[in-house]
Protein backbone atom coordinates (compact mmCIF):
# COMPACT_ATOMS: atom_id res chain seq x y z
CA UNK A 1 0.00 0.00 0.00
CA UNK A 2 1.30 3.46 -0.79
CA UNK A 3 1.96 5.65 2.20
CA UNK A 4 -0.40 8.61 2.66
CA UNK A 5 0.46 12.11 3.84
CA UNK A 6 3.85 11.40 5.28
CA UNK A 7 7.52 12.20 4.88
CA UNK A 8 9.20 9.11 3.49
CA UNK A 9 12.93 8.46 3.35
CA UNK A 10 13.99 6.43 0.38
CA UNK A 11 17.01 4.37 1.43
CA UNK A 12 19.57 2.83 -0.88
CA UNK A 13 17.95 0.48 -3.42
CA UNK A 14 14.49 1.38 -2.11
CA UNK A 15 11.39 2.27 -4.07
CA UNK A 16 8.71 4.32 -2.32
CA UNK A 17 5.37 5.47 -3.68
CA UNK A 18 2.93 7.86 -2.02
CA UNK A 19 -0.59 8.81 -2.95
CA UNK A 20 -1.96 12.20 -1.92
CA UNK A 21 0.15 14.67 -0.02
CA UNK A 22 3.55 13.87 1.33
CA UNK A 23 7.26 14.13 0.86
CA UNK A 24 9.89 11.78 -0.55
CA UNK A 25 13.62 12.21 0.09
CA UNK A 26 16.95 10.56 -0.56
CA UNK A 27 19.63 11.69 1.88
CA UNK A 28 23.26 12.08 0.92
CA UNK A 29 23.38 10.82 -2.64
CA UNK A 30 26.93 10.26 -3.84
CA UNK A 31 27.13 8.23 -7.01
CA UNK A 32 23.54 7.05 -6.50
CA UNK A 33 20.56 8.60 -8.28
CA UNK A 34 17.30 9.83 -6.78
CA UNK A 35 14.73 9.54 -9.55
CA UNK A 36 11.32 10.96 -8.79
CA UNK A 37 8.15 10.52 -10.80
CA UNK A 38 4.77 12.23 -10.51
CA UNK A 39 1.31 11.87 -11.96
CA UNK A 40 -0.05 15.34 -11.08
CA UNK A 41 -3.69 14.38 -11.74
CA UNK A 42 -3.84 11.14 -9.76
CA UNK A 43 -1.47 12.64 -7.15
CA UNK A 44 0.77 9.64 -7.15
CA UNK A 45 4.46 10.23 -6.61
CA UNK A 46 7.33 7.79 -6.40
CA UNK A 47 11.06 7.76 -5.88
CA UNK A 48 13.76 5.18 -6.47
CA UNK A 49 17.30 5.31 -5.05
CA UNK A 50 19.38 3.66 -7.81
CA UNK A 51 22.89 2.41 -6.96
CA UNK A 52 24.22 0.79 -10.15
CA UNK A 53 23.43 0.95 -13.87
CA UNK A 54 22.71 -2.71 -14.57
CA UNK A 55 21.59 -5.77 -12.69
CA UNK A 56 24.13 -8.57 -12.43
CA UNK A 57 23.50 -11.40 -14.84
CA UNK A 58 24.45 -14.25 -12.59
CA UNK A 59 23.09 -13.22 -9.21
CA UNK A 60 19.60 -13.20 -7.92
CA UNK A 61 18.84 -9.78 -6.49
CA UNK A 62 16.05 -9.21 -4.04
CA UNK A 63 15.89 -5.46 -4.54
CA UNK A 64 15.05 -4.27 -8.05
CA UNK A 65 15.53 -0.65 -6.93
CA UNK A 66 19.26 -1.19 -6.75
CA UNK A 67 19.76 -1.00 -10.52
CA UNK A 68 18.67 1.47 -13.18
CA UNK A 69 17.53 -1.21 -15.62
CA UNK A 70 15.27 -2.93 -13.08
CA UNK A 71 14.58 -0.04 -10.72
CA UNK A 72 13.04 2.40 -13.18
CA UNK A 73 10.46 -0.08 -14.57
CA UNK A 74 9.73 -1.26 -11.00
CA UNK A 75 9.13 2.34 -9.87
CA UNK A 76 6.73 2.90 -12.77
CA UNK A 77 4.91 -0.37 -12.07
CA UNK A 78 4.46 0.62 -8.41
CA UNK A 79 3.13 4.02 -9.41
CA UNK A 80 0.65 2.53 -11.87
CA UNK A 81 -0.49 0.11 -9.18
CA UNK A 82 -1.17 3.12 -6.93
CA UNK A 83 -3.41 4.64 -9.62
CA UNK A 84 -1.04 6.68 -11.78
CA UNK A 85 -1.56 6.96 -15.52
CA UNK A 86 1.48 6.13 -17.59
CA UNK A 87 0.87 8.94 -20.09
CA UNK A 88 0.85 11.60 -17.36
CA UNK A 89 4.11 10.59 -15.68
CA UNK A 90 6.89 13.12 -15.49
CA UNK A 91 10.30 12.69 -13.91
CA UNK A 92 13.22 14.54 -12.37
CA UNK A 93 16.50 13.14 -11.13
CA UNK A 94 19.63 14.18 -9.27
CA UNK A 95 22.79 12.56 -7.98
CA UNK A 96 25.36 10.56 -9.92
CA UNK A 97 28.36 12.48 -8.61
CA UNK A 98 31.96 11.47 -8.37
CA UNK A 99 32.59 12.49 -4.78
CA UNK A 100 36.05 10.94 -4.62
CA UNK A 101 37.58 13.63 -6.77
CA UNK A 102 41.08 13.58 -5.39
CA UNK A 103 43.23 10.59 -6.09
CA UNK A 104 46.85 9.58 -6.28
CA UNK A 105 45.76 7.17 -8.97
CA UNK A 106 45.23 9.17 -12.12
CA UNK A 107 44.28 6.22 -14.29
CA UNK A 108 41.34 4.75 -12.50
CA UNK A 109 38.29 6.85 -11.81
CA UNK A 110 35.34 6.03 -9.66
CA UNK A 111 32.97 7.24 -12.34
CA UNK A 112 30.00 5.03 -11.61
CA UNK A 113 27.92 8.14 -10.90
CA UNK A 114 28.03 9.33 -14.50
CA UNK A 115 27.15 5.85 -15.72
CA UNK A 116 24.22 5.70 -13.32
CA UNK A 117 22.85 9.00 -14.60
CA UNK A 118 23.23 7.89 -18.18
CA UNK A 119 21.59 4.51 -17.51
CA UNK A 120 18.54 6.06 -15.82
CA UNK A 121 18.19 8.55 -18.66
CA UNK A 122 18.36 5.74 -21.23
CA UNK A 123 15.84 3.51 -19.48
CA UNK A 124 13.37 6.39 -19.18
CA UNK A 125 13.82 7.25 -22.84
CA UNK A 126 13.47 3.64 -23.97
CA UNK A 127 10.14 3.53 -22.16
CA UNK A 128 8.99 6.55 -24.15
CA UNK A 129 9.03 8.78 -21.08
CA UNK A 130 10.88 11.95 -20.26
CA UNK A 131 13.00 13.47 -17.53
CA UNK A 132 11.98 17.11 -17.22
CA UNK A 133 14.97 18.26 -15.21
CA UNK A 134 18.13 16.76 -13.84
CA UNK A 135 21.08 17.78 -11.73
CA UNK A 136 23.70 15.08 -12.07
CA UNK A 137 27.45 14.63 -12.21
CA UNK A 138 30.08 16.89 -10.70
CA UNK A 139 31.66 15.99 -7.40
CA UNK A 140 28.99 17.15 -4.96
CA UNK A 141 26.90 15.01 -2.66
CA UNK A 142 23.19 15.80 -2.81
CA UNK A 143 20.11 15.39 -0.68
CA UNK A 144 16.95 15.43 -2.80
CA UNK A 145 13.42 16.02 -1.69
CA UNK A 146 10.08 16.04 -3.45
CA UNK A 147 6.86 17.51 -2.06
CA UNK A 148 3.74 16.21 -3.80
CA UNK A 149 1.40 19.18 -3.09
CA UNK A 150 3.71 21.75 -4.59
CA UNK A 151 5.39 19.44 -7.12
CA UNK A 152 8.72 20.95 -6.17
CA UNK A 153 11.85 18.84 -6.36
CA UNK A 154 14.75 20.32 -4.42
CA UNK A 155 18.44 19.54 -4.29
CA UNK A 156 20.56 20.34 -1.27
CA UNK A 157 24.37 20.40 -1.25
CA UNK A 158 26.88 21.20 1.43
CA UNK A 159 28.13 24.29 -0.43
CA UNK A 160 25.02 25.86 -1.93
CA UNK A 161 22.26 24.84 0.46
CA UNK A 162 18.81 23.91 -0.81
CA UNK A 163 17.71 24.97 -4.30
CA UNK A 164 14.69 24.13 -6.42
CA UNK A 165 15.52 22.00 -9.42
CA UNK A 166 12.07 21.97 -10.99
CA UNK A 167 8.34 21.83 -10.46
CA UNK A 168 6.83 18.58 -11.69
CA UNK A 169 3.36 20.16 -11.60
CA UNK A 170 4.30 23.08 -13.84
Amino acid at each position, binding site marked *: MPAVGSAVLVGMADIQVIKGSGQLSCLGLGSCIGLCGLDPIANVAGMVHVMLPQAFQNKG*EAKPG*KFADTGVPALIAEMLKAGADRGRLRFAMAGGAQVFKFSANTESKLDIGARNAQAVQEVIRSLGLRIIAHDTGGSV*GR*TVSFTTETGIYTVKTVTSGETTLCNLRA
Partner: protein
Amino acid sequence: MASDLTLGLMELSAVREMTNIGLGHATTALSQMTGKAFNMSVPDVESVALEQIPDLLGGGEARATGIYMPIEGDVSGHIAFLMNWESTLSLWRMLLGDAPWDPSQITEMEASALLEIGNIVNASFLNALSEMTGLSMHATPPYLAIEMSGAILDAIVVEACYSEHYALSIRTSITDYEGSMEGFFLYIPSVGGLRTIFKTLGIAEAA
Protein backbone atom coordinates in the same frame (compact mmCIF):
# COMPACT_ATOMS: atom_id res chain seq x y z
CA MET B 1 24.21 -19.20 0.05
CA ALA B 2 27.09 -17.53 -1.70
CA SER B 3 26.23 -13.99 -0.81
CA ASP B 4 24.79 -14.54 2.62
CA LEU B 5 26.94 -14.19 5.65
CA THR B 6 26.04 -15.91 8.86
CA LEU B 7 28.72 -15.57 11.44
CA GLY B 8 28.88 -17.45 14.69
CA LEU B 9 30.32 -16.09 17.92
CA MET B 10 33.65 -17.68 17.16
CA GLU B 11 33.97 -15.96 13.79
CA LEU B 12 32.76 -12.63 15.12
CA SER B 13 35.22 -12.62 17.97
CA ALA B 14 38.05 -13.67 15.67
CA VAL B 15 37.25 -10.77 13.37
CA ARG B 16 36.93 -8.36 16.27
CA GLU B 17 40.26 -9.45 17.70
CA MET B 18 42.01 -9.30 14.36
CA THR B 19 40.69 -5.87 13.48
CA ASN B 20 41.39 -4.63 16.99
CA ILE B 21 45.07 -5.44 16.54
CA GLY B 22 45.11 -4.05 13.00
CA LEU B 23 43.47 -0.84 14.09
CA GLY B 24 45.91 -0.57 16.97
CA HIS B 25 48.70 -0.49 14.40
CA ALA B 26 46.84 2.07 12.32
CA THR B 27 46.26 4.30 15.33
CA THR B 28 49.95 4.08 16.24
CA ALA B 29 50.84 5.16 12.70
CA LEU B 30 48.53 8.14 13.00
CA SER B 31 50.04 9.08 16.37
CA GLN B 32 53.52 8.97 14.93
CA MET B 33 52.58 11.27 12.09
CA THR B 34 50.68 13.81 14.13
CA GLY B 35 52.58 13.61 17.40
CA LYS B 36 49.28 13.12 19.27
CA ALA B 37 48.08 10.21 21.35
CA PHE B 38 44.83 8.67 20.25
CA ASN B 39 42.25 6.62 22.06
CA MET B 40 40.66 3.85 20.06
CA SER B 41 37.32 2.22 20.72
CA VAL B 42 36.79 -1.53 20.51
CA PRO B 43 35.61 -2.29 16.99
CA ASP B 44 31.92 -2.79 16.36
CA VAL B 45 31.61 -5.75 14.08
CA GLU B 46 28.30 -6.12 12.37
CA SER B 47 27.07 -8.28 9.60
CA VAL B 48 24.87 -6.01 7.53
CA ALA B 49 23.35 -5.49 4.15
CA LEU B 50 25.55 -2.93 2.43
CA GLU B 51 22.59 -0.62 1.85
CA GLN B 52 22.24 -0.16 5.60
CA ILE B 53 25.72 1.26 6.09
CA PRO B 54 24.94 4.95 5.48
CA ASP B 55 22.07 4.79 8.00
CA LEU B 56 24.08 2.82 10.53
CA LEU B 57 26.87 5.35 10.47
CA GLY B 58 24.48 8.24 10.71
CA GLY B 59 25.26 9.36 7.16
CA GLY B 60 24.27 12.98 7.43
CA GLU B 61 24.48 16.16 5.45
CA ALA B 62 27.38 17.74 7.25
CA ARG B 63 30.70 18.13 5.47
CA ALA B 64 33.15 15.33 6.13
CA THR B 65 36.33 13.83 4.76
CA GLY B 66 36.63 10.30 3.50
CA ILE B 67 39.74 8.49 2.36
CA TYR B 68 38.88 5.30 0.61
CA MET B 69 40.90 2.44 -0.82
CA PRO B 70 39.87 -0.73 -2.57
CA ILE B 71 41.84 -3.75 -1.33
CA GLU B 72 43.23 -6.45 -3.58
CA GLY B 73 44.93 -9.76 -2.90
CA ASP B 74 43.82 -12.97 -1.18
CA VAL B 75 41.37 -11.01 0.91
CA SER B 76 39.87 -8.27 -1.20
CA GLY B 77 37.55 -5.64 0.16
CA HIS B 78 37.25 -1.98 0.96
CA ILE B 79 38.66 0.23 3.64
CA ALA B 80 37.94 3.82 4.49
CA PHE B 81 38.92 6.33 7.12
CA LEU B 82 36.39 9.09 7.75
CA MET B 83 36.34 12.20 9.89
CA ASN B 84 34.23 15.31 10.28
CA TRP B 85 35.26 18.70 8.92
CA GLU B 86 36.50 20.11 12.22
CA SER B 87 38.78 17.12 12.65
CA THR B 88 40.06 17.53 9.14
CA LEU B 89 41.03 21.13 9.90
CA SER B 90 42.78 19.99 13.07
CA LEU B 91 44.64 17.32 11.18
CA TRP B 92 45.85 19.80 8.58
CA ARG B 93 47.06 22.13 11.33
CA MET B 94 48.94 19.25 12.95
CA LEU B 95 50.54 18.19 9.69
CA LEU B 96 51.02 21.40 7.75
CA GLY B 97 50.70 24.08 10.40
CA ASP B 98 47.80 25.62 8.52
CA ALA B 99 44.38 24.78 7.10
CA PRO B 100 42.35 26.10 4.16
CA TRP B 101 39.67 28.68 4.95
CA ASP B 102 37.30 27.38 2.40
CA PRO B 103 36.78 23.76 1.37
CA SER B 104 36.66 24.84 -2.26
CA GLN B 105 40.20 26.23 -1.91
CA ILE B 106 41.95 22.99 -1.06
CA THR B 107 45.43 22.91 -2.52
CA GLU B 108 47.14 19.91 -3.99
CA MET B 109 49.40 19.91 -0.96
CA GLU B 110 46.48 19.76 1.44
CA ALA B 111 44.76 17.02 -0.53
CA SER B 112 47.88 14.92 -0.78
CA ALA B 113 48.57 15.30 2.96
CA LEU B 114 45.18 13.71 3.64
CA LEU B 115 45.69 11.03 1.00
CA GLU B 116 49.02 10.19 2.55
CA ILE B 117 47.53 9.95 6.04
CA GLY B 118 44.84 7.65 4.72
CA ASN B 119 47.39 5.62 2.87
CA ILE B 120 49.61 5.05 5.87
CA VAL B 121 46.82 4.47 8.38
CA ASN B 122 44.94 2.04 6.17
CA ALA B 123 48.08 0.26 5.01
CA SER B 124 49.23 -0.31 8.61
CA PHE B 125 45.87 -1.89 9.32
CA LEU B 126 46.16 -4.21 6.33
CA ASN B 127 49.79 -5.10 7.03
CA ALA B 128 48.89 -6.16 10.54
CA LEU B 129 46.07 -8.34 9.19
CA SER B 130 48.35 -9.79 6.54
CA GLU B 131 50.98 -10.69 9.10
CA MET B 132 48.48 -12.39 11.38
CA THR B 133 46.92 -14.48 8.65
CA GLY B 134 49.73 -14.89 6.15
CA LEU B 135 47.29 -13.78 3.46
CA SER B 136 47.96 -10.98 1.03
CA MET B 137 45.98 -7.74 1.25
CA HIS B 138 47.16 -4.79 -0.78
CA ALA B 139 45.67 -1.36 -0.57
CA THR B 140 45.35 0.28 -3.96
CA PRO B 141 45.98 4.04 -4.27
CA PRO B 142 43.65 6.08 -2.07
CA TYR B 143 40.76 8.29 -3.08
CA LEU B 144 39.76 11.39 -1.16
CA ALA B 145 36.38 13.06 -0.88
CA ILE B 146 35.43 16.16 1.06
CA GLU B 147 31.67 16.16 0.91
CA MET B 148 28.41 15.39 2.73
CA SER B 149 29.16 12.44 5.00
CA GLY B 150 26.15 10.53 3.65
CA ALA B 151 27.31 10.98 0.08
CA ILE B 152 30.79 9.67 0.91
CA LEU B 153 29.35 6.52 2.47
CA ASP B 154 26.94 6.20 -0.44
CA ALA B 155 29.82 6.23 -2.92
CA ILE B 156 31.82 3.64 -0.92
CA VAL B 157 28.84 1.33 -0.63
CA VAL B 158 28.23 1.60 -4.37
CA GLU B 159 31.82 0.57 -5.07
CA ALA B 160 31.49 -2.33 -2.65
CA CYS B 161 28.17 -3.56 -3.99
CA TYR B 162 29.68 -4.22 -7.39
CA SER B 163 31.01 -7.43 -5.97
CA GLU B 164 28.99 -7.98 -2.81
CA HIS B 165 25.62 -7.16 -1.48
CA TYR B 166 26.15 -8.33 2.02
CA ALA B 167 29.16 -7.61 4.13
CA LEU B 168 30.75 -7.22 7.44
CA SER B 169 31.04 -3.66 8.56
CA ILE B 170 33.75 -2.97 11.07
CA ARG B 171 33.80 0.44 12.68
CA THR B 172 36.08 1.94 15.24
CA SER B 173 36.31 5.50 16.35
CA ILE B 174 39.51 7.17 17.36
CA THR B 175 39.83 10.40 19.30
CA ASP B 176 42.78 12.34 20.52
CA TYR B 177 42.91 13.26 24.19
CA GLU B 178 42.31 16.95 23.57
CA GLY B 179 39.18 16.13 21.63
CA SER B 180 40.39 18.06 18.60
CA MET B 181 40.19 15.12 16.29
CA GLU B 182 38.06 12.06 15.85
CA GLY B 183 37.55 9.70 13.01
CA PHE B 184 36.43 6.21 12.25
CA PHE B 185 37.35 3.26 10.13
CA LEU B 186 35.04 1.30 7.96
CA TYR B 187 36.36 -2.04 6.77
CA ILE B 188 34.33 -4.14 4.38
CA PRO B 189 36.07 -7.42 3.63
CA SER B 190 34.60 -9.41 0.78
CA VAL B 191 32.58 -12.44 1.79
CA GLY B 192 34.95 -14.68 -0.15
CA GLY B 193 37.92 -13.04 1.54
CA LEU B 194 36.44 -13.60 4.98
CA ARG B 195 35.91 -17.27 4.20
CA THR B 196 39.59 -17.46 3.25
CA ILE B 197 40.54 -15.85 6.56
CA PHE B 198 38.45 -18.28 8.59
CA LYS B 199 39.82 -21.22 6.67
CA THR B 200 43.37 -20.06 7.29
CA LEU B 201 42.67 -19.56 10.97
CA GLY B 202 41.05 -22.99 11.15
CA ILE B 203 37.65 -21.68 12.15
CA ALA B 204 34.74 -23.48 10.56
CA GLU B 205 32.00 -21.27 9.29
CA ALA B 206 28.71 -21.42 11.14
CA ALA B 207 26.17 -23.52 9.30
